[in-house]
């Protein structure tokens, strides 16, 4: 069996900057992946790499600690010190004598290290893992830790490309803003965390077979997405609505619970009444693969959402258009 990593391991070829005076290292690494999986660019000095690092940051920086013009640790800090490059994963190559004393990883901002003599299989898997770890961390919603926009788009596009039937549900909350305005954002976050958990468990409870299609993502704010097979969509909607309506009252203070919502006065002095928060769900279907692009799903959902929002109570609308 070929121990090289296949090109479809990652979604697109990974660009790796290799900064080392050791040319053998490049050869060793290149043999570990199938062609088309990784694109290595070799720099023998840090100074040569810097401009390109800033202008077109790669997916991974692999740097030797021993460089002619600075240390690898200094190079890492130089790049990762800037907020826009903080997400760039860096692996530091060390020699045995570098490992004599404990490193202060608080000071040296790298993500992993390798040390000589290199054991090819270890190098291969550490690099793969570092890349995937960075991808996951990059796209997770900071609050709910659910996959974010990049993953949602990718997932949808994959299904569209394969002309697979699926149901894509867009979930959002009605009157969330009035709740946030009255109770503050940390109380708002509580509701978002609850909603995330609720969608995840509902989908997991309905789709018990791990091989069946199921995905939950967090677009941001009070917008969530789930993907299930078409026949599951309605059950998921009904269960989310039932659970949310039962749970949401507990997030209001006692007076508002008794009053049935929030009463507030706007800047013009008008008294407004906002009922309890509710969920609106718009479900886009892809029967016989009619969608051509993930973006199409979003615009159909936006139109459906208007319909779902017409009702002040929790409601769902499933796309009725057939191909």
């Amino acid at each position, binding site marked *: 069996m070929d121990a090289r990593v296949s090109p479809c391991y990652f979604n697109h070829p990974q660009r790796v900057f290799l900064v080392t005076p050791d040319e053998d290292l490049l050869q060793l690494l290149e043999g570990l992946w199938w062609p088309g999986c990784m694109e290595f660019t070799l720099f023998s000095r840090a100074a040569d790499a810097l401009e390109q690092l800033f202008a077109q940051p790669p997916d991974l920086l692999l740097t030797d600690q021993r460089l002619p013009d600075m240390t690898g640790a200094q190079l890492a800090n130089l790049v990762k010190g800037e907020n826009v490059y903080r997400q760039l994963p860096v692996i530091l190559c060390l020699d045995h004598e570098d490992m004599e004393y404990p490193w202060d990883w608080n000071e040296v901002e790298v993500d992993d290290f390798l040390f000589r003599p290199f054991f090819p299989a270890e190098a291969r898997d550490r690099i793969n893992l570092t890349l995937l770890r960075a991808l996951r961390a990059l796209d997770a919603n900071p609050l709910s830790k659910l996959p974010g926009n990049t993953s949602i788009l990718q997932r949808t596009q994959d299904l569209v490309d394969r002309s697979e039937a699926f149901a894509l549900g867009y979930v959002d909350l009605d009157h969330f803003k009035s709740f946030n305005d009255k109770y503050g954002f940390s109380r708002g976050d509580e509701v978002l965390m609850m909603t995330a*958990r609720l969608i*995840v468990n*509902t989908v*997991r409870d309905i789709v018990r077979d791990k091989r069946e299609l199921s995905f939950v993502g967090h677009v941001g704010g009070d917008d969530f997405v789930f993907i299930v097979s078409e026949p599951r969509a309605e059950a998921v909607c009904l269960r989310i609505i039932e659970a949310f309506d039962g*749970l949401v009252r507990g997030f209001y203070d006692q007076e508002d619970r008794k009053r049935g919502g929030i009463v507030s006065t706007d800047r013009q002095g008008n008294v407004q009444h906002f009922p309890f928060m509710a969920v609106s769900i718009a479900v886009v279907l892809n029967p016989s693969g009619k969608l051509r692009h993930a973006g199409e799903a979003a615009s159909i959902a936006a139109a459906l959402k208007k319909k779902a929002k017409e009702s002040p109570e929790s409601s769902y609308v499933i796309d009725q258009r057939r191909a």
Partner: protein
Amino acid sequence: MQEDLKTLVKGQVLAVKDLPTLPGVLDEVTKLVQDPDSSTEQISKAISRDQVLSAKVLKMVNSPVYGFPGRISSIQHALVLLGFNVIRGIIISTSVFDIMQAAMKGLWQHSLGCATACGIIARRVGIEEPEEFAVAGLLHDLGKVVAIVQLPELTGRINEAIQDKDLSYYEAERHIMGFGHDRINAWLGRHWRLPANLREAMARHHRPETAQHYPEITAAVHIGDFLSRAFEFGNSGDDQISYLSPKAVNVLKLRMADLERIMDELAESYLDIADLTF
């Protein structure tokens, strides 16, 4: 001296790691979580009959990890938010009392009896979420369970005092420790970040007139405790009749006729649940 004891006891109480339960409900829930066809409703119904499992589930869902501490007071809601895997974890890590089981059965039955009464009262009064009242009733003597586990020596002395001095459990606790299980409930409720309504009911069910924010649920637990004792459903540690606060009855606007109807309904419910195994 008294204050030192209180600090010491509080430390021991809050250090509780393993809160065991009785095998009956645990076995049933274990079977349910292993069955891929069982529903959340079935599991939550079963867990709602066991004070320790219910307390563990609520402690978990209200922990800061989930991001909404102090918000969830219903078992059904907790299960939806925790999910099967976490529930399975809680069940697997719950052990069973090995000794004194017979003595404990009464306490479990009394707690379930109080929960049942609270649910009936809540529905009769027209409360929007009667399940929260039932949960508060179920947990009202949790402090006793924790004391049995964490303070075996003091518990022994309390039981002696009940026998020798003909005291109620509550009086004996205060005689021996200077405070009762209502105080232990308050510590646990705060430490575990349980919702404020459950905390107040747990901490003030012996003195419902001192309830500040949630007088109704506190009054319901007080009456539920009284009724469950009056019917001698289970045993809460002594065989005294507890005091019924007239104010608690007034808070819920209950008239004599309402109480009679509640008692009729309760008598029937008790017949239904009497043969449940613990």
